[in-house]
């Protein structure tokens, strides 16, 4: 049975561990402390050091060594960043492959709308997950999210021209801001469906594929 105040008592356990450090318990391992009211007693793994207190409530604490309690296996921030880069890149590649394969089958309009939807979903998931990780002080998770952003962005930019060309062989290349105004939607030129059917440019194909890679922020076991 867990005492309602057991979490607040864990600090007392750490003090007990510090006191017992000189007798060998501080070298690592686990010990249990019983806290019936104000009475605190402890035993090490060999059973030494116990008192006659009533063992009504108990808590087990894991020690990394020198009497300092901590998580058994904290994920590494750098490792999670690399994991995020790989996951972001892999997810962007999957998005690119699906778009490339689906374009001749379902048509340019459906694939363009799908790519935009995946990009929005990727941005949403990254925003939500990153905020949760920051709120929980989970810096390994934040590193994973940052890795997803970088991996998705880099891969999307690299494969964007291929994706755009697969959707429309005459896709507009280049990054010129001049085209941003010229390519805007105008009702006089047809419906929104016609506009979406014209497919992405090389740059926007890369941006949407890259943002799709951010969906990897939803995964990341061991970091989130």
């Amino acid at each position, binding site marked *: 049975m867990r005492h309602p105040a057991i979490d607040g008592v864990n600090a007392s356990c750490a003090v007990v561990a510090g006191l017992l450090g000189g007798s060998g318990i501080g070298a690592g391992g686990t010990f249990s402390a019983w806290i019936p009211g104000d009475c605190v007693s402890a035993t090490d793994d060999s059973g030494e050091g116990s008192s006659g207190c009533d063992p009504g409530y108990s808590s087990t604490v894991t020690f990394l060594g020198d009497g300092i309690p901590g998580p058994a296996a904290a994920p590494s921030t750098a490792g999670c960043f690399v994991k995020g880069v790989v996951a972001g890149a892999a997810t962007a590649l999957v998005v690119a492959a699906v778009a490339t394969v689906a374009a001749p089958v379902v048509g340019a309009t459906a694939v*363009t709308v799908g790519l*935009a939807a995946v*990009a*929005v979903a*990727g*941005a*949403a*998931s*990254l*925003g*939500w997950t*990153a*905020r*949760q990780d920051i*709120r929980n002080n989970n810096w390994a998770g934040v590193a994973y999210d940052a890795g997803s*952003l970088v991996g998705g*962005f880099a891969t999307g*930019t690299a494969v964007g021209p291929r994706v*755009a060309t697969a*959707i*429309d062989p*005459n*896709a*507009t290349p*280049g*990054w*010129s*801001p*001049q*085209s*941003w*105004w010229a*390519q*805007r*939607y105008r009702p006089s030129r047809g419906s929104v469906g016609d*506009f*979406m059917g*014209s*497919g*992405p*440019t090389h*740059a*926007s194909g890369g*941006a*949407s594929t890259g*943002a799709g890679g951010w969906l990897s922020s939803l995964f990341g076991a061991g970091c989130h």
Partner: protein
Amino acid sequence: MSLIMLLPLLAIISSTFLFFFVLSEARAQHVMGHSLVAMALALVLAALNFFGVRRVGLGMAVITKGKPEAVQARYGKAFYVGVLIWTVCAGFLGLWMVRLLNGSL
């Protein structure tokens, strides 16, 4: 010729990230005790971000008019990276605004 341009896409991606980032924070802090207010606040910030990014992009198009194609492309790529960096900063700016609002009410 493809017409889906980069500018509105970047504005949408940036604003979506900001919306969910702010919404997550506002819900966690129970801003004004009402989730509808939190959603409205996130929507307003996302809309401001959308039109802001769009405005800057179109401004850049005017500035680069008449410059060589290579220079224009460089500006376009810089804008692309700049919006991604701004997106993360905007998330934290939104976070600060939510906390400011929550603290003053």
